[in-house]
């Protein structure tokens, strides 16, 4: 095995063993720390030790027993769901508009949509906080959702625009020549064919909102205290294994969403 050639240039696997070691270490570095949290969340001890001295569900009970954590969880999921709906709808419309429009204006609009990815989040956070302070949107659901929508929109636009790029716009022309108005043609012919891209965009929007920290730190609070803000504060003050339980649940959500997105992409490849 080690003496077999690995590359076009006949380097053997043995001679680039070091490369595999580096990559394996990098992968361990990327994946393992987060996963370590899961066994810790089932530990019976208050202090950290690995492997845990005994197993228990006490930290999950602590999480579920806390009204504050429950409310924060509900708030986060409600905000993420609402963000997903708005960002997916508006982002898809924008991507469609950009795909049909030509010229400098379209490029400008696309660039503007990408700004939230480029501008440091802290700057958007304090700006939004300042704005909300004037119009009373701080610590409201609408405030959190609008701010999260700003962060999710570029991702939806990128994903749907990529989907539209591999879609043949002639199909829509054909539908229109057959008697469908443009909106009907979009709904009956275009949308069913880019649905995978739209769904991927929606997943990204959901995870973006669920994981958003910096802006939430400023604009979330009160009844609409998000999970991330409460976690951030808890992490800054003291480390309680309850966080391990919450983290494990969030990891499960991440794995679920990542799996769904990979599945969608696989389906997109085979349906072509």
């Amino acid at each position, binding site marked *: 095995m080690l003496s077999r050639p690995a590359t076009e240039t006949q380097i053997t696997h043995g001679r680039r063993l070091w490369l595999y070691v580096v990559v394996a270490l990098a992968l361990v570095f990327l994946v393992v720390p987060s996963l370590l949290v899961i066994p810790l969340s089932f530990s019976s001890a208050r202090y950290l030790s690995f492997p845990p001295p005994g197993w228990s569900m006490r930290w999950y009970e602590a999480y579920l027993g806390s009204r504050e954590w429950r409310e924060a969880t509900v708030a986060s999921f409600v905000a993420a769901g609402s963000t997903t709906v708005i960002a997916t709808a508006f982002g898809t419309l924008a991507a469609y508009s950009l795909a049909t429009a030509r010229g400098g204006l379209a490029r400008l609009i696309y660039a503007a949509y990408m700004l939230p990815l480029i501008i440091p989040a802290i700057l958007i956070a304090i700006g939004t906080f300042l704005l909300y302070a004037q119009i009373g949107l701080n610590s409201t659901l609408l405030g959190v959702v609008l701010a999260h929508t700003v962060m999710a929109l570029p991702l939806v636009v990128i994903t749907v625009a990529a989907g539209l790029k591999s879609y043949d716009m*002639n199909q829509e*022309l054909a539908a229109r020549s*057959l008697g469908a108005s443009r909106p009907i043609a979009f709904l009956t012919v275009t949308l069913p064919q880019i649905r995978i891209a739209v769904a991927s965009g929606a997943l990204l929007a959901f995870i973006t909102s669920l994981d958003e920290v910096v802006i939430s730190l400023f604009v979330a609070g009160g009844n609409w205290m998000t999970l991330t803000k409460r976690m951030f504060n808890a992490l800054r003050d003291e480390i309680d294994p309850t966080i391990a339980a919450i983290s494990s649940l969030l990891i499960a959500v991440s794995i679920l969403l990542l799996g769904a997105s990979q599945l969608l992409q696989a389906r997109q490849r085979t349906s072509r």
Partner: protein
Amino acid sequence: MVLAGFIRPDKGQVLFGDRDITLLPPHKRDVGMVFQNYALFPNMTVAGNLAYPLKIRRVRHGEIDQRVRRALDMVQLSGFGDRQIDQLSGGQRQRVAVARAIIFEPRILLMDEPLSALDKKLREQMQIEVRHLHQRLGMTTVYVTHDQREALTMSDRIAVIDRGRLRQIGTPRDVYERPANRFVADFIGESTFLPLEQRDGAFFIGKDRIEAATRPAELGNPLLVLRPEKLQIIAGADGATLQLNRLTGTVREIVYQGESTLLYIATGAGEVAVRRANAGADPALDVGAPVTLAISPADTIVVAAESA
């Protein structure tokens, strides 16, 4: 694209009969269109594709089924209704596209290079099928193609368009036998052009007088249009009594092409291509042999040279 309403003209009108539809949006035009890549909807079955224009027009369910079946019969795809689009061959897709474009009985049918994606054999077969279909339907059909042979095969009337300008419109025979200008002569069929001199209202190449059946309206610099298959190679004095236009030259190159042989003849006025059918009895010629070319005045075309 202008006819279907996808591209707005800068100016001018689009009329169907007496009706000005220049500003009518595509979905209200009732124009059946067959796209170059067919643009069949992969998210629907064959029957779903055919039913689409009827559903949009809110035709009753029972009638939709009936009309879809009839349309499938017409394009000889009965029983294919439940197939997915990606289960069809190129020729089948083409027929579904045609069926979809005519199922709602549009006023005209547009075909935008509908056969260009097919291989040569299938293309020729489909040309005949489309032509039969057209004869059966009797529907005005506008067929766009860059393949001049396809245009000659398929059309009742051909419009030759060059960079947005209409250069000639007429029957295939008109356009081929009597091209109105150099562009048309060059675009439709093979041609060799020789410059002509004009003296006393007659045309000359060198000392030889050329009789022509047509003369262009404006005579800038007249050009003689020679179709390779219209030229005959005659031996010395043969046919001297006939009224033929003659050119002399020597054979420069011989290209054997199976059913015919192409000869390039160098004449005093320029090189001329001549096609000889390989029917059998013609004497073999060698490169360098002197020959005389003849063409009947009825087949002799003169066009004006264009600066463009």
